[in-house]
C-alpha cells in the first residue's frame, strides 16, 4: 500500500507521498478459489513522485502496484519522460500541450507494458494522479489515471476547473476519516443495518449529506503554497502513523517526499531522497545524467 496526496490551491499544486513498498505474495485464503495477499517485507525507499517533463510544470504521484512486470513504476515514469522529450515519437509539444493529453499518453504507455506481461502473471492495479499546468493556462489541474487488474480506465479530471481541494489514493482510511469525518466503511455499514436495504440513490443522498455536514474545511483557494505543502506532508505523516499502529504490516511509511508545482517556478522538489550522494556523482544533476 502507499499514500499519495494531491492538493490543489490557486497558488499551485502539491504532491506528497510516503516511500513504503510492500512485497506481497498471494496465498490461499479461507474463501474457496480465492487468494489473499501476504506481506513478506516492506521496503521504505520507493520513489512515487515524478516530474514528467524537466522544465515544465507537470508532475505525478503514484500508488498501488509498484511495478509492471520487471520495471518499477519509478523507472517507467522516467522512461515516459524520455519519450515525451523526444517529441517526434510522442507527438508532445512543450509550447502547446494539455495535462489531459499527458495523462492519456501516460495511460497508453503503461498499458503497452501491461499488455506485454505473460498471461499467467498477476496484472497490476495502480493509480496515478497527474497534475500540472497546461500550456498558457493560469490554474493547475489534476487528472486520475487508474489501471485496475491490468485494465485501464480513461483519465478522469479530479475536479472542476477553478475549484480547489485535496485528493488521496492508496491507504487513505486515516485521511478519509480526517477530511470527510467518517470511515469509508460507513457506507457499507449503513447498507447492512438499514431495513429494508436502501436504494443506491437514497444511500448516495445520505452519504452526500453526511459528507457536506462533517467535512473538515482544510483547503481554501487563497491558501499559500507553503501551507499546502505543510498540510500535504502532515497528512502523509498521519497515514504513516496510522498504518504503524493499526493491526497489520506497516505498509505506509518511510521518508516523506513532496513537490510543488506552480505557474512560474514550475516543478520544485520540497523533500526528496537519493540513494546516492551528489558529491560522489557530479555527473548526475536533478536525477539525470548530464548531457543526456
Amino acid at each position: 500500500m502507499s499514500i499519495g496526496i494531491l492538493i490543489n490551491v490557486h497558488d499551485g499544486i502539491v504532491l506528497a507521498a510516503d516511500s513504503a513498498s510492500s512485497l506481497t505474495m498471494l496465498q490461499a485464503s479461507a474463501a474457496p478459489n480465492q487468494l489473499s495477499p501476504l506481506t513478506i517485507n516492506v521496503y521504505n525507499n520507493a520513489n512515487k513522485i515524478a516530474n514528467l517533463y524537466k522544465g515544465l510544470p507537470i508532475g505525478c504521484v503514484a500508488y498501488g502496484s509498484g511495478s509492471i512486470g520487471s520495471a518499477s513504476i519509478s523507472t517507467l515514469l522516467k522512461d515516459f519522460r524520455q519519450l515525451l522529450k523526444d517529441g517526434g515519437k510522442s507527438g508532445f509539444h512543450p509550447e502547446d500541450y494539455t495535462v489531459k493529453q499527458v495523462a492519456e499518453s501516460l495511460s497508453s504507455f503503461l498499458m503497452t507494458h501491461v499488455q506485454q506481461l505473460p498471461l499467467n502473471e498477476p496484472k497490476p492495479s495502480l493509480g496515478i494522479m497527474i497534475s500540472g499546468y497546461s500550456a498558457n493556462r493560469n490554474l493547475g489541474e489534476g487528472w486520475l489515471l487508474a489501471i485496475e487488474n491490468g485494465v485501464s480506465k480513461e483519465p478522469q479530471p479530479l475536479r472542476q476547473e477553478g475549484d480547489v481541494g485535496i485528493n488521496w489514493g492508496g491507504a487513505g482510511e486515516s485521511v478519509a476519516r480526517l477530511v470527510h469525518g467518517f470511515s469509508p466503511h460507513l457506507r457499507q455499514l449503513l447498507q447492512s443495518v438499514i431495513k429494508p436495504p436502501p436504494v443506491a440513490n437514497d444511500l448516495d443522498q445520505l452519504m452526500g449529506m453526511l459528507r457536506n455536514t462533517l467535512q473538515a474545511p482544510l483547503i481554501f483557494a487563497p491558501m499559500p503554497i507553503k501551507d499546502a505543502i505543510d498540510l500535504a506532508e502532515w497528512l502523509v505523516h498521519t497515514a504513516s502513523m496510522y498504518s504503524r499502529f493499526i493491526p497489520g504490516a506497516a505498509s505506509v511509511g518511510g521518508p516523506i517526499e513532496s513537490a510543488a508545482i506552480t505557474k512560474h517556478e514550475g516543478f520544485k522538489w520540497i523533500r526528496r531522497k537519493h540513494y546516492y550522494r551528489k558529491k560522489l556523482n557530479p555527473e548526475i544533476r536533478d536525477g539525470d545524467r548530464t548531457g543526456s
Partner: protein
Amino acid sequence: MEIELDLKKLSDTLRLPADDTLLLPQNQEPELTVGADGASFPAFPTFRNPVLTSGLIVLGTSSTISRSFDPQAVPTFHIVLPASAEPKPATAFEKYKLLKKQMADSGIPLLSDEDLRREIHERKGMRSVRHD
C-alpha cells in the same frame, strides 16, 4: 430492536453502540482500490460565522460553510441493529421490565386481571404450600 432514524434531528448527537467486529484486522483496511478519494471546495468559500481576515488571505463572502440540505428531501431510514447491540439492563427496574417483556413474548398464556383477582381470593387465608 428497530430504530427509526429521524434525519431532521441529525444536528443532535447521535451515538450508536460500538460494534467490536469493526476492530477485526480484516475490517481495518479496505480492499486495495485504485480510485482516488477527495474533497473539493469552491473557489470562494462560505462560512456560517464571520471570520477574521489577515494579510494575504482575504475571503470573499460569509455564510454557511456547508451546502445546506433540505431534510424534507431525504427519506426516513429505519436502522435495525444486531441483537448484541441491545443495551443490557442496569437497574432492577430495567431487569424487571426485560423479564416481563420476555414472559409476554414467550407465548405462554398469562392470567387476565379477573383471573388474577380470583386466584388471590381463592388463596386468601390459606397457607401457601411449597411443591417441590
